[in-house]
């Protein structure tokens, strides 16, 4: 689908161009809300649930979603919605585990969590992986967007007499420049507010196509009766066909996908960290999963569903050579008139821009927090908790955003010219995600989980996963629930179950064997040849990993599978012992506030004093600005009583206009009360942070 279909009109292209320019200006407007990196990466942690929920919708739906799920909807029916309505199972873990841990422990990135919970080397390792993954993912995003939109464009655009040829890379460069500019200036606030527009646009466009289609075939009852019963069931077959079945979707999407999405997606986590507090983050996540995801299923799959009904009614309406991937384009073109079709194309572009903008901001956040800052600390040019470096950090944030936008485009050249690079990225991601996912999950919910467990899960788990990739029939077949073996894509979905099993088993066995491993490590330490023993173990582990790589990638069958599998387990044992021996780890210190079992401690640290859990009410106040540098604001005794607040508690004040979504707001600390009821005394720093409008009421609430 890389060739122009030439099906739009000039009005459609004008709509698209106007939309792009509007987004550029709108996004850049939010530059004034970025005073420091907390604003640039987390939007000042000030937003309300609905704005974040919409932002997550816009991020979750990419350009490719319309193409992919419409094709699935056309081919398989309502079961295309499966991956959008199976995300509830890990909600308790997220709402009361991972979300409060990342917010209260003031972690600014996933790699930072790995350092605090495990070791600095774990952070280093995860930083590299995240950067490679995110840059690659930005490239894939650009490429899929280009491929989705290019066929809708004319071959040439004529503007003021100049004829401009439209190419894939030209389209990508233009989009990249627009997204790059507004993210570089506007940061996370621009991401969130452009997402609001883009999310609304893509929801409207998808629902518009669906309802127009239903109307086109004669209304709901006609639409329903045209579709075959098997096609209307919301689940694919239990274990067939090989390429799309319910059992595969459960393990690959409902389990692995949900954990990956909620726990590992840095762009998504940064959205939740942009909410004004944990309670608001919970609301955003809940509304998103309960309501927005089912709506999104209609938005992205609806085009395919109505196309199927239209096809059943009149098969000649679509070109005979139409592929499933072209369904959304053709059905939109048939249903929407000139101008409206341009709006739908703009929505596809919006889907890409909202996904990419979040990824670029996340990539820059990792660069600033996990590369630039640690290097400066290492070079002794900055101190660990030094916040005076913010001007420089903002510069680095902006420069790195530009750099990663360019790197993302360079990745497109690589992916487009060398399909193997694209496949390698997908394989790399698919291979590394399960062990890291298990590591984060066990790290947050199992306080006994150790760095040895982490390292063995990554090295041993990946080796066992690669063996599953090489011998799918022997290793994945027995747990594939009868899914047919497809030589082209051997157990693509069921591999997720195998990967989860091997990584979990390795993690659990190593963690439960920690005492024995420590005893063995001490015994080796007492031996006069201890270093020789350890180096021999390292050499043996490296040799077995290399042997596994030869078996998997060079397809060498040097030994029987049983023996190869046994060797890999042995290597996992060596890795567990080596990491127990060398990695310094204090279980007491490194789990405190970083697992669900001590999340209260993290909450106390976040506040800096004893918690005040009394539930008060909000206070509506006017503000007065007073002199001073302290980050405290003062209410009257009566207003303090209304909020059940005490001096030293944390407070959040915002403009009373709900539709601003918390844009004009800030966090502070309660200072000494006064006697002017209905008035809050703020300082210039609060005015500059919150950009409050004189004369407007403010709403104040105690946070904790």
């Amino acid at each position, binding site marked *: 689908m890389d060739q122009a279909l030439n099906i739009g009109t000039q009005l459609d292209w004008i709509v698209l161009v106007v939309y792009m320019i509007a987004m550029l200006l709108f996004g850049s407007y939010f530059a004034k809300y970025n005073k420091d990196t907390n604003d640039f990466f987390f939007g000042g942690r000030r937003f309300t649930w609905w704005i974040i929920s919409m932002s997550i919708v816009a991020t979750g739906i990419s350009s490719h979603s319309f193409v992919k799920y419409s094709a699935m909807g056309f081919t398989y029916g*309502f079961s295309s919605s499966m991956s959008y*309505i*199976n995300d*509830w*199972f*890990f*909600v*308790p*873990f997220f*709402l*009361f*585990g991972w979300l*409060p841990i990342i917010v209260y422990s003031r972690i600014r990135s996933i790699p930072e969590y790995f350092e605090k919970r495990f070791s600095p080397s774990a952070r280093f390792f995860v930083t590299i992986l995240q950067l490679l993954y995110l840059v690659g993912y930005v490239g894939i995003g650009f490429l899929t967007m280009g491929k989705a939109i290019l066929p809708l464009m004319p071959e040439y655009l004529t503007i003021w007499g100049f004829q401009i040829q439209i190419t894939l890379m030209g389209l990508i460069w233009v989009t990249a420049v627009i997204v790059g500019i507004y993210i570089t200036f506007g940061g996370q606030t621009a991401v969130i507010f452009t997402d609001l527009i883009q999310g609304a646009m893509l929801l409207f466009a998808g629902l518009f196509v669906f309802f127009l289609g239903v109307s086109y075939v004669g209304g709901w009852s006609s639409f*329903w009766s045209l579709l075959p*019963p*098997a096609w*209307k*069931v*919301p*689940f*694919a*077959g*239990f*274990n067939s066909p090989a390429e799309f079945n*319910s*059992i595969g979707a*459960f393990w690959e999407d*409902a*389990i692995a996908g949900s954990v990956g999405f909620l726990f590992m997606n840095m762009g998504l986590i940064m959205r939740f960290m942009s909410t004004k507090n944990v*309670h608001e983050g*919970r609301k955003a996540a*809940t509304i998103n*999963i*309960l309501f927005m995801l*089912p709506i999104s299923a209609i938005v992205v799959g609806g085009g395919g569903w109505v196309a199927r009904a239209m096809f059943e009614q009149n098969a000649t309406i679509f070109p005979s050579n139409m592929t499933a991937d072209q369904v959304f384009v053709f059905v939109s073109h048939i249903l929407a008139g000139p101008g409206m079709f341009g709006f739908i194309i703009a929505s596809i572009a919006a889907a890409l821009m909202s996904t990419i903008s979040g990824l670029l901001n996340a990539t820059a956040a990792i660069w600033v927090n996990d590369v630039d800052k640690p290097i400066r600390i290492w070079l002794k040019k900055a101190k660990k908790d030094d916040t005076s470096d913010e001007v420089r950090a903002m510069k680095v944030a902006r420069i790195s955003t530009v750099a990663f936008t360019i790197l993302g485009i360079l990745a497109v050249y690589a992916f487009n010219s060398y399909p193997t690079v694209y496949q390698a990225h997908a394989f790399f991601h698919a291979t590394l995600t399960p062990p890291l996912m298990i590591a984060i999950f066990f790290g947050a*919910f199992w306080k006994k989980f150790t760095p040895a467990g982490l390292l063995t899960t990554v090295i041993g788990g990946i080796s066992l996963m690669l063996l599953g990739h090489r011998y799918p029939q022997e290793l994945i077949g027995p747990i594939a629930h009868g899914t047919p073996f497809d030589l082209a894509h051997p157990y693509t979905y069921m591999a997720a179950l195998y990967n989860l099993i091997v990584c979990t088993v390795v993690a659990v066995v190593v963690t439960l064997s920690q005492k024995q491993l420590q005893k063995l490590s001490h015994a080796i330490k007492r031996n006069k040849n201890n270093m020789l023993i350890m180096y021999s173990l390292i050499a043996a582990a490296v040799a077995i990993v290399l042997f596994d790589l030869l078996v998997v990638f060079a397809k060498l069958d040097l030994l029987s599978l049983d023996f190869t599998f046994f060797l890999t387990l042995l290597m996992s044992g060596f890795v567990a012992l080596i990491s127990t021996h060398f990695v310094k780890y204090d279980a007491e210190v490194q789990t405190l506030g970083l697992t*669900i*079992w001590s*999340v*209260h401690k993290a909450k106390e640290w976040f506040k800096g004093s004893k918690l005040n*859990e009394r*539930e008060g009410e909000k206070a509506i106040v006017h503000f007065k600005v007073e002199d001073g540098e302290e980050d405290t604001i003062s209410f009257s005794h009566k207003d303090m009583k209304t909020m059940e607040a005490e001096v030293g508690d944390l407070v959040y004040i915002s403009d009373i206009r709900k539709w601003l979504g918390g844009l004009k707001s800030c966090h502070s600390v309660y200072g000494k009360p006064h006697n002017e009821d209905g008035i809050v005394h703020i300082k210039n720093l609060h005015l500059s942070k919150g950009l409050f409008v004189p004369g407007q009421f403010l709403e104040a609430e105690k946070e904790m």
Partner: protein
Amino acid sequence: MPTFFNSWLPFLYLYIGGGIFFIAGMIIIRKSKAIDMRLKRDRFWWKVMVFGFFYFAIFHAILITAALYL
């Protein structure tokens, strides 16, 4: 006509299999005291989480019934 294998079996697998993870999560947040049932706000969230599980299960059940019998 869709068979049991294409309709109710995937439904049962999803909600029994997923339900195990869900219940494990609910137990862990209670045992770790991450959710404090003395607080009105946390009691609200507990109800929302239970509601969400049945909301999706009932939603899927209605869709299957509609596909099979309407």
